[in-house]
């Protein structure tokens, strides 16, 4: 006789098989593993050297391990993940990152966050920008939305 546990296991295996050939995107696992997204500029005609430099500076902090940087027309979004043992010092780390960036790049308007949601949205924006259908304007608008969301978390 088939027990309910056997039915449950059969369902689990059958459902797991449905997802076999689907490609795994970075954003699907962004909350759990290190994704290290490339630094981005919403206007892809511009060079992203300065953004690379910003990412390098932020990554130099020993407390951080996954950094995403997106530069828009007005704002530059900097999102990072904090190593678990340093999560008690989040505010202090954010203050230090902000201070370092504003000192080195006084002309930029930085929005700094350690929120997982903001990080996930940054990775999603990176994926969307890879498709040809996604225009610069749409990217800029999405970045503004993310920055607004970041302001709400503070």
């Amino acid at each position: 006789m088939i027990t309910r546990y056997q039915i449950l296991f059969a369902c689990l295996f059958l459902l797991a098989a449905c997802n076999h050939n689907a490609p795994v995107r970075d954003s699907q696992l962004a909350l759990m593993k290190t994704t290290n997204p490339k630094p981005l500029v919403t206007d892809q005609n511009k060079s992203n050297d300065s953004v690379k430099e910003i990412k390098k500076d932020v990554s130099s902090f020993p407390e951080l391990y996954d950094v995403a940087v997106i530069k828009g027309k007005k704002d530059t979004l900097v999102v990072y993940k904090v190593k678990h043992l340093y999560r008690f010092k989040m505010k202090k780390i954010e203050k230090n990152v902000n201070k370092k960036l504003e000192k080195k790049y006084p002309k930029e308007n930085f929005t700094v966050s350690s929120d997982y949601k903001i990080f996930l949205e940054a990775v999603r924006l990176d994926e969307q920008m890879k498709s040809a259908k996604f225009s610069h304007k749409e990217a800029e608008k999405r970045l503004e939305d993310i920055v607004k969301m970041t302001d709400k978390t503070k």
Partner: protein
Amino acid sequence: MPTTKEKNTTPQQRNYQQLQQKHEIKRPVLKNCLKAFFVGGFICAIGQAVSYFYIYFFDFTEQSVGNPTVATMVFFSMLLTGFGVYDRLGQFAGAGSAVPVTGFGNAVISAAIEHRTEGFVLGVGGNMFKLAGSVILFGVFSAFVVALIKTLLVIWGVL
């Protein structure tokens, strides 16, 4: 020197107490702690998964995801209490099932089920928060005290 309680007991009673202590089964404290640790940890892992679900599929940030997560976990524990599963889990895990927020849901709904025969107002309404009421009271009060201390520290420029 014997205590006043020991003075009042007869030799027979003392003998009986010694015999009882000899045969008493010791509480498996370490085993209970381990059970509580693993079951409590498992409940918290489910909570983490629920919060990731809300972050991933809805517009909740890490700051705001706590509210729907707590509501969902309490709802789950209420369902499990209603089906009689959480009571068994409570017997097995002890503090592991009582300390997380699901234990709060269990305290509310089990009191409501117990007193439902006494009517909705005086029975369910009057007894629902008998146990959980003290949790809410001390929770709100301690939150008030902590917020007061933080406000003072911010005003004085310490934080």
